[in-house]
């Protein structure tokens, strides 16, 4: 059984089908890329899996269990974490606090316990902070843990979001254009970090425009066009698929 089963999913806005009849199976432990020309519906599909976008039709199953009706916070509890293309960091909190919030699905401290200051709370706080600090250092931000997140550059903020998503130790890590906006010199560490995280058993789903990264990193790639499935397979299969080439580069390129 696949970890994530996306069946015949459709997302419509009025008469426009941003995603139409799309099916995909993501196996556990894989790095799944989603690519396609602009307007292909990648981000909409991504948002649908994450829970921010409601489906007009179709089902999404996580380990056999239907999740398409669940809110994002409920999916987080099931082990799905994501980052945002346009950033949703918490600018008025420090970096470490941002990442500590990522731990939330695993946290056990309840409202009343926190309010009254029960003994266990402090212990868990310490633990959360250690996890958070570790993730920050992983992304190269450890030296700035006390800084306000609002002071970071765009590239650094993307790294912060990844650290934050990792804090929950998710089963599925969804990355929305993780290296877009990250300076070229810092992209390689991010790529190898993704590989490492995947090495510990985390399934990764990523949307990205950087072809080299996608081809070099992903085990499986889904190509979309106009909201529909175009092709799926290993990087090698995709790279030699004439329809894919024509979708990106036009008809002539196929015969080039």
């Amino acid at each position, binding site marked *: 059984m696949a970890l994530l089963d996306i069946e015949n999913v459709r997302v419509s806005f009025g008469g426009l089908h941003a995603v139409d009849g799309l099916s995909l199976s993501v196996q556990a432990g894989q790095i799944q890329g989603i690519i396609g020309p602009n307007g292909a519906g990648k981000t909409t599909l991504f948002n649908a899996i994450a829970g921010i976008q409601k489906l007009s039709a179709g089902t999404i199953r996580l380990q056999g269990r239907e999740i398409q009706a669940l809110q994002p*916070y409920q999916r987080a509890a099931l082990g799905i974490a994501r980052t945002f293309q346009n950033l949703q960091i918490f600018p008025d909190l420090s970096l470490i606090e941002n990442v500590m919030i990522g731990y939330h699905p695993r946290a056990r401290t309840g409202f009343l316990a926190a309010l009254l200051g029960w003994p266990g709370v402090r212990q868990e706080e310490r633990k*959360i902070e250690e996890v958070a600090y*570790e993730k920050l250092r992983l992304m190269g931000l450890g030296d700035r843990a006390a800084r306000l997140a609002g002071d970071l550059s765009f590239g650094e903020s993307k790294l912060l979001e990844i650290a934050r998503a990792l804090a929950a130790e998710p089963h599925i890590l969804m990355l929305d254009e993780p290296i877009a906006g990250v300076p070229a010199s810092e992209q390689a560490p991010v790529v190898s970090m993704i590989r490492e995280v995947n090495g510990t058993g985390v399934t990764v789903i990523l949307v990205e425009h950087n072809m080299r990264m996608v081809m070099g990193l992903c085990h499986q790639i889904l190509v979309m066009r106009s909201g529909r499935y175009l092709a799926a397979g290993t990087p090698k299969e995709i790279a030699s698929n004439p329809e894919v080439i024509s979708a990106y580069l036009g008809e002539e390129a196929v015969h080039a």
Partner: protein
Amino acid sequence: MPTQPRTSSFAGHRLDRHRWTLFAVWVLALVWPLVAPNDYVLSLGVYFFINLILIASLNVIMGWTGQVSLAHAAFYGLGAYVSGVLNTRWGISPWLGTIAAIAAVGGVAAFVGWATLRLRGPYLSMGTLGFSGILSVLFVELVPLTGGPNGLAGIEPYEVFGYALDTPGRFFWFAWLVGALVTWLLINLFCSVPGRSLRAIEGSEIGANTLGVNTFRAKVIAFSLSAGMAGLAGAMYAHFNQFASPETFGFFASVLLVVMVALGGVGSLWGPVFGALVLTCVPELLRRFQDSELLIFGLCMIVVLLYLPGGISSLGQRFGRARQRKHLVKEADPSKPLRNLKMESPNGTVGH
């Protein structure tokens, strides 16, 4: 590698720092009854703590969920009237009345919050605007209950073992204690998972939701808690003043509270202390300027809002943050390059 546990960890360090600040400020406040030349000045101390609780309550909503409530003076009034009416009309003890006030105001707010917080947007401001207006009218028109525009008189003071807290000198200790307790609870909340989740909502509601925070429920709980605190402040006011009148709790008062939260620093733990100081002391200080007092206040407000966007408390925060940075950089191992991708934590163990 030394296996030193991170007891001087960032989070624990911060919690302790806040608790020590609480201790210091409150010990300092003990001086007030000694230096106050008369009962009137002493009563300002009482109002300081009551205002502190009230402003802190609004700060929870504004700073921790990013919504502006325009009804907090009305909640304050509702708390005062609930406890006051129970006491004057049905002879209920001020203590029970206060508990009833907290529950009633918190409950009503849960309902208003439930109705208005479902969606993202300024709906809480709108709902609280309407709610504030309705309460104002009710305070004035339900004459048999509330005494109408002339106010509710004859509210009894608290009694502890037969000892009535009916003078500023006696009430001051009570207010001081309750203020400390409330601040203690807020500090606990601030440095904890639920508190952080609330503050995350202020930063990005979508982001918080994605990270596992049930944002709707959190907002409603925060709003209810916040209103309950305002109700507590109201009940305290009623039993100290022994009188309550509708003008105190109108729309303009709610707006003024919003201003005080902003002046103190929205979302900052210690902002309400400054806000309460301004709310309690500034009218006294400006009194001599008579008519110009409002203008001076308005101009000062503009200056603070433009040049101290984090509020007065941000001055203290800048200082604190500089110290934190030094502390955290010390913790990083200087012999390893900072961008180390190996998953090794400072005390040498890998993972947990």
